[in-house]
């Protein structure tokens, strides 16, 4: 096919990726990787570079909307970003030694984890008593309720959350994805942060984590202009559309479809990785 055809198809695919990514709270990278590797036969390294661009596009594109609403906990995000950025540096360093099959299998496992986490009951974690560490780090906050009032919340298990974030960072360095699922696990599951605060803060953080290894990716040559251009613009427009639609759509059906889709892709990835097709 010609460059024009490839670019247009990729643009449309990236648009869907950005749309789905911002509607479900996951980064655009999750859809971009299988689109490139399975549909176009692109080498995994180029796909990882594209996913990184997509992650930053989703994060900055839709993140600005969430910051304005006052849900994101900037202090929590910044504190945890120490863990994710350090993890990302380590991950990017390790990535050179991994071949395509290994990356495919890791990616497949992350997808399965993502699908599993989507089924969790979303909790507001009322009445959580904050830990001493959380209080000293000023990690408590407030978030706006539907009636416009502000509800206060506290959190705990700071160390555990930090640890999971290190892993999230490493995965991000290897796969280029934002590891949104691990971030939500750390905040919602371990630190008992209200669900909406964790998803918006995670979305917010994805961009910074990706940034940490981005320059290294460019220098290694895995962010290729012919791929980066349609991915970046497609995801940006998709994420912006998604952020606008979010208020009006019933997202639960969408999440179910997405869940099935990523399970299929996960199985495909792991199978191909194990049988060495990559």
């Amino acid at each position, binding site marked *: 096919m010609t460059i024009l055809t490839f670019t247009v198809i990729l643009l449309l695919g990236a648009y869907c990726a950005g749309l789905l990514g911002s509607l479900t709270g996951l980064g655009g990278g999750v859809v971009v990787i299988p689109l490139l590797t399975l549909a176009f036969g692109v080498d995994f390294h180029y796909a990882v570079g594209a996913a990184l661009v997509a992650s930053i596009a989703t994060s900055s594109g839709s993140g600005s909307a969430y910051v304005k609403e006052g849900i994101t906990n900037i202090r929590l995000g910044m504190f945890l*970003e120490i863990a994710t950025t350090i993890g990302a540096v380590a991950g990017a360093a390790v990535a050179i030694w991994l071949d395509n099959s290994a990356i495919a299998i890791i990616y497949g496992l992350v997808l399965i984890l993502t699908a599993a986490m989507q089924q969790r009951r979303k909790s507001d974690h009322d009445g959580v008593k904050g830990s001493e560490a959380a209080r000293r780090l000023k990690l408590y906050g407030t978030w706006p309720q539907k009636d416009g009032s502000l509800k206060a919340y506290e959190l705990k298990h700071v160390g555990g959350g930090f640890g999971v974030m290190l892993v999230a960072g490493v995965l991000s360095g290897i796969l280029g994805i934002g590891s949104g699922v691990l971030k939500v696990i750390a905040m919602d599951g371990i630190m008992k942060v209200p669900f909406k605060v964790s998803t918006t803060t995670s979305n917010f953080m994805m961009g910074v984590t990706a940034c940490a290894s981005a320059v290294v990716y*460019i220098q290694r040559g895995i962010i290729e202009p012919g791929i980066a251009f349609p991915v970046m*613009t497609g995801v940006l427009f998709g994420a912006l559309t998604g952020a606008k639609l979010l208020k009006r759509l019933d997202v639960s059906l969408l999440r179910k479809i997405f869940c099935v889709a990523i399970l299929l892709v996960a199985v495909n990835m792991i199978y191909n990785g194990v049988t060495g097709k990559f």
Partner: protein
Amino acid sequence: MKTTGNKERDMQLLIGNTLRWGVTLACAVALAGGALYLWKHGAEPMKDYSSFDYHALPAGAETYTTLSGILDGVAHFTAAGWIQLGVIALLLTPVMRVLLSLCDFVLQRDWLYAAISAVVLSVIVCNSLGGAV
């Protein structure tokens, strides 16, 4: 217990707007490069992306992997140069966000978080420069 005051809302709005502007700018630059790319190369067959070797980059890779190559491309209006410039602008948006938060924490005299933001910023900067070797 600290509640979200006016100053914090202002900062959140500033960060949000900066992200929006940064993203728009990056997108515009990349679109310019992309349009040029399609104009010049649209009819050519798709590049072969099916294999990648860290030690054997495609010919002419400096135009999109090194800073000097990219800036050179921008000055000469090559598609690769402008697209990568757009990518770099996109990369800067989260960095700007950390920088703005750092300034905000300093203004609020929140030294703990000013320090935390500085650590995050230095990890990013050091890693980026370190890779330039």
